[in-house]
């Protein structure tokens, strides 16, 4: 099945984000789920609709050969399956990742007074990552302003 109407694509991707948020909720990632729901389904959909409003809503029939994308996708899948199938099984407490987990859990309340460990890791233990993340938002904001503000839209056959 192939969807050529891009509005349908946008709606589906919004639904997908909500599904993803529910899965994340099941996996105990409440903060991530809240963010995915608001960002993926909210911001993402608004941005996509805004773009479609300013551009086209129908996709042209592609003329590409599907061999290269198929090859890349299958190759990547093979490596990934080969790799992840030897990782520790899902959901157990005795994995390398979990060995460091209690560190954060036990230290958070005592060292930062914050019960939501995700908040304390986000803002303090790995606060520099979050500074970087905020910088990413800043960069994206300025980038969109630089691209879409001021300049008068030129004709489609502008010669430079």
């Amino acid at each position, binding site marked *: 099945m192939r969807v050529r109407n891009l509005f349908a694509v946008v709606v589906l991707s919004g639904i997908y984000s909500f599904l993803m948020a529910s899965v994340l909720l099941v996996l105990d990632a409440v903060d991530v789920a809240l963010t995915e729901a608001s960002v993926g389904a909210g911001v993402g959909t608004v941005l996509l609709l805004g773009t479609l409003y300013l551009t086209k809503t129908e996709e042209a029939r592609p003329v590409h050969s599907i061999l290269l994308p198929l090859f890349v996708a299958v190759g990547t899948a093979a490596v990934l399956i080969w790799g992840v199938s030897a990782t520790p099984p899902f959901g157990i407490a005795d994995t390398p990742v979990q060995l460091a987990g209690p560190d954060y859990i036990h230290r958070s309340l005592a060292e930062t007074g*914050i019960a939501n460990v995700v908040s304390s890791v986000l*803002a303090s233990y790995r606060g520099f990552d*979050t500074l970087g993340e905020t910088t990413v938002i800043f960069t994206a904001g*300025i980038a969109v302003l630089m691209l*879409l503000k001021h300049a008068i*839209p030129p004709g489609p056959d502008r010669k430079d």
Partner: protein
Amino acid sequence: MRLDVILRVVTKVILPFMLVFAIYVQFHGDYGPGGGFQAGVIAGATIILYALIYGLAPARRLVPAALVEAMIPLGVLIYAGVGVVGWLTGGNYLDYSHLAHDPVHGQEWGVFLVEAGVFVTVSATMVAIFYAFAGRGRR
């Protein structure tokens, strides 16, 4: 009489609640899911909803583009500034421990300020990006 009167009335009713919810998410981040980023998205969405229902021009009067554009770097500056204060109080960059008398309170203050910075940048960026797309005009 415009046909979208229901939308307008409903929007007017729920807007304050959305803002309150944003503030709740912002400040409750220490005890439950949430924080500056999520709150910023919700607050930004409030303005966007207002702009969608009442039009771009009234929204721009309410929240001027120049203000939003200044807030984008301002939020990151608050964040980075807290880090600099960490320097000035004798710690490493982004060390909040010396912001108050005891390290735990210092951490709480640091996290609070940093989340405020994130909130400012995120909400402003949301609105700025929406203004940029909406103000572009189809051709």
